[in-house]
């Protein structure tokens, strides 16, 4: 890049084109909201949904038509804007996840009257910008700013229902925990800066890799910084023991927001986590690193605790919250395998999880709007009240449980395969046992929907067209990724290699 020129080069411009488009969309949404009559408020959400689909098409179009981001670019070439972001396949795939999530979430939000406001959709989109930059960010400062952009939007979204006490409480709780985690992470990041005098994670990684770059007497300090950064990242991906906010926030937040937090936000957290650790910014990515042992312990505890606690939930949103903790555990297996295949498998897993969990929460939105609560009992006899909703939920649950022919099975298969491949067969075994525990509570919901009867069986649950489009898209995604996983996995695997610029 040329420091004299004030205008960015074309690749630099293209690298943030999706984010620029999102900003334009936010402005459009806010302006449109002003000129609409109150009765036409629904159209704001439609604009947000269609706008994000258009941006999705732009993003994918850049890749298909112009090979942008160019996968064969070297590391240095792919770093843009003074090394602030890296435009690579990883960024692309995560952007696709976020845009799919925000589009579908906007569609399912249309059925919740209290959310029909311009600010709501603008915040969803601004969080998406944060996620996008989290996935692209390759500089600690950029990462922190992106994380905060996303988080602050999400805090407000979680507490968006101001006349619902649970929603406000959830928002405050999420905010307090989040601010605390951010502060700790920022302290960790500043320690790393203090030790290395660098902020770009790839520069830090190459420094750390040199022997003697970190004097032995401050090794402990470096480790402390690592622990603090793990705490911050762990919060974003809701890994145990940084998960305490998850059930409360998921339960209190409006269900579409929960769908968004549990998929896009989690995926963004993983993008950052995998990028930082796989690059080796906190120590070489091999099985001798201290952070590796730490992450493995977190992986095991996250899967196990999430699954076991999920069994005892009687609120569907809390159950899905613990389930999402457990799912984060499976995804972490892909990271700790420390191979391009493993990271690719983790990305595939997140991709399928976006479709799966959005479908599950989409059904929850519609059912709880009709029944007025999130109790599991609302799902009794759902197959009679709303056969297609029950079918969508069935696919989502089978996918979460990892039963073929859904995407969840293939996702788990790739993850476990990567683990066995890396010699971590014992970790795969723990994962498999956990998948079995998980099956129990997913199956319980299937049981409620299909095998139990309820007194309100005659009351049909109305499904709006927007919601049926959203659910149909998600279910098609689940089935497509389950049957024809080849191309998508090839794509994420190729991207997985970009996580490891220094090995191989």
């Amino acid at each position, binding site marked *: 890049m040329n420091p004299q020129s004030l205008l960015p080069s074309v690749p630099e411009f293209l690298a943030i084109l999706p984010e620029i488009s999102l900003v334009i969309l936010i402005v459009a949404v806010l302006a449109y909201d002003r000129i609409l009559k109150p009765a036409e408020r629904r159209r704001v959400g439609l604009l947000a949904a269609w706008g994000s689909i258009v941006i999705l098409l732009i993003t994918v179009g850049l890749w298909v038509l112009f090979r942008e981001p160019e996968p064969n670019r070297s590391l240095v070439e792919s770093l843009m804007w003074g090394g602030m972001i890296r435009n690579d396949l990883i960024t692309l795939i995560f952007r696709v996840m976020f845009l799919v999530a925000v589009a579908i979430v906007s569609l399912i939000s249309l059925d919740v009257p209290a959310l029909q406001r311009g600010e709501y959709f603008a915040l969803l989109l601004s969080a998406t910008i944060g996620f996008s930059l989290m996935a692209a960010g390759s500089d600690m400062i950029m990462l922190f700013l992106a994380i905060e952009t996303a988080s602050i939007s999400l805090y407000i979204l979680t507490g968006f229902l101001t006349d619902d006490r649970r929603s406000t409480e959830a928002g405050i709780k999420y905010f307090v925990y989040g601010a605390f985690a951010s502060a700790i992470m920022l302290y960790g990041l500043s320690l790393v800066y203090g030790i290395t005098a660098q902020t770009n994670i790839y520069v830090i990684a190459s420094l750390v890799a040199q022997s003697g770059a970190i004097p032995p007497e401050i090794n402990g300090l470096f480790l402390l910084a690592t622990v603090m950064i793990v705490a911050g990242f762990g919060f974003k991906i809701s890994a145990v023991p940084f998960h305490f906010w998850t059930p409360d926030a998921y339960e209190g937040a409006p269900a579409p927001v929960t769908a968004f937090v549990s998929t896009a936000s989690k995926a963004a957290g993983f993008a950052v986590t995998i990028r930082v650790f796989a690059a080796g910014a906190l120590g070489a990515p091999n099985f001798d690193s201290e952070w590796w042992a730490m992450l493995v312990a977190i992986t095991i505890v996250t899967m196990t605790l999430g699954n076991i606690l999920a069994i005892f939930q009687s609120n569907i949103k809390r159950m899905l919250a613990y389930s999402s903790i457990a799912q984060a555990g499976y995804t972490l297996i892909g990271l700790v395998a420390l191979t391009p295949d493993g990271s690719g498998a983790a990305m595939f897993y997140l991709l399928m999880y976006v479709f799966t969990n959005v479908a599950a929460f989409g059904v929850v939105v519609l059912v709880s709007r009709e029944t007025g609560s999130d109790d599991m009992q609302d799902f009794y006899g759902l197959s009679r009240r709303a056969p297609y909703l029950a079918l969508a939920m069935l696919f989502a649950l089978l996918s979460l449980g990892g039963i073929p022919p859904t995407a969840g099975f293939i996702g788990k298969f790739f993850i476990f395969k990567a683990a*066995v*491949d890396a010699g971590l067969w014992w970790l795969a075994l723990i994962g498999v046992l956990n998948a079995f525990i998980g099956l129990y509570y997913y199956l319980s919901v299937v049981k409620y929907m299909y095998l139990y009867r309820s007194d309100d069986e005659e009351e049909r649950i109305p499904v709006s067209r927007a919601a049926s489009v959203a659910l149909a898209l998600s279910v098609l995604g689940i089935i497509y990724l389950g049957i024809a996983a080849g191309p998508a996995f090839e794509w994420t695997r190729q991207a997985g290699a970009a996580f490891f610029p220094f090995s191989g």
Partner: protein
Amino acid sequence: MLTFMTFFPLIGVALILLLKPFNRESDELIKRIATGTSIVTFILSLVVLGMYNRADPGLQLVGRAVWIDVLNIQYYMAVDGLSILMVLLTTLISMLATAGSWTGIEHQVKQYFVFMLLLEAGMLGVFLAQDLFLFYIFWEFTLVPMYFLIGIWGGARRVYASIKFFLYTMAGSLLMLLAILYMGLSNDTFAVPELVAGRSAFAAAQNWLFLGFAIAFAIKVPLFPFHSWLPDAHTEAPTAGSIILAGVLLKMGTYGFMRFNLPLFPEASVTFAPTIAVLAIIGIIYGAIVSFAQTDVKRLVAYSSVSHLGFVMLGIFSLNNLGLQGAILQGVNHGLSTGALFYLVGVIYEKRHTREMSDFGGIWRAMPIFSALTLIITLSSMGLPGLNGFVGEFTILMGSMGSEALGPYPWIYTAFATSGVILAAIYLLWMFQRVFMGPLDNPENQALRDVNWGQLAIILSFLVFIVWIGIAPSGYFALMDETVAALVRSIGSAVVAMP
């Protein structure tokens, strides 16, 4: 051809689902489409039989394509002597079970027949898949429709039974998945023939891999002590569900042992053969003894399955020609006889809404045709010479007698197993006596009408094969001769090379 046959039931599913937009949805039409689809599938399987060359021991009618390129996962379907009879059994039993549900299903008719057809496609896939990944997908997939069949249309404790069925099977399957992953990685392929050829790559771990597969299959069979899901599932399932469970799903377990455990881990198979044979014999005797204690006819038939499947397992782990051939044929026999018994129980349950033996007695006077047919099928289940059960059990007993894998005194196994045949005669005849003989003193039973033409046709279809196999089994053995002989040779040569 195989692909077309396997996925043909899905065409029926699509037709049934498409009825609604055309406003032609009626239960009657759905039943016709479902039954028609299963009949056509049966005819397709006969076409497959016609194309099948029994002199060729290898895989035939191969359909092969790359599926997930990166991991070298293939779509790979083929048939050989181990599976051809299983395929025919699946299409036959599915056809009879679908036709047999014509009257028994009153609510959610559409979903019921959709699940039946999905199940048929899944089962055919299990028997034809030659790629472990593909096999696993079909294997797991059969769980879902069966879960709903038991859970929605089952008896009083259906919810409990369906969950137990699902979780038990799943527990075993997941360990199998790990074993599959391990082998797929060591050889960079999931195709079974390639894995068999390259088995030295994972020979060191084969005892563990054997167990990974064996537990999954043993739960399905079920081999003692993994059988406890079976009585619940069988008893609570609707009639057609029980017929398919007994007729086909259990055979997926025994088939798995033959298709995967024996050729992939021959040394481990020999190592574990005595243990599994002992468990099989415990199953034979335990199943028989528990059958005595049952007062519910359906539960009795369910426990008798544990006993019968013990014979099949004993035959497989005799690891010789006779044993394996007997095991395959006995699998078919059990499917026919027990399937038919479940159907008969279903017929009488529809009429009387009870299965307690004490509620019956003297049925022969009220329903002579039904009773006579039941007697023949009961006798076939007992292993009376001239009917199918005898051929299978006799071959298995011969096989175990001459087995080298079972140690220096194989006749001990044979002796214990034979006692199972005697016990079976006792509990089945006792059941028959209590239900059909004696005075017709219960007024509700006096009003019973005999079977109608439709039911008679289904029972007779079972009977044709029961008698045919009993009198002229050689044609059936000929179908599997070459493949079994090749399998036994390959085990033999691997074992000779053992240190």
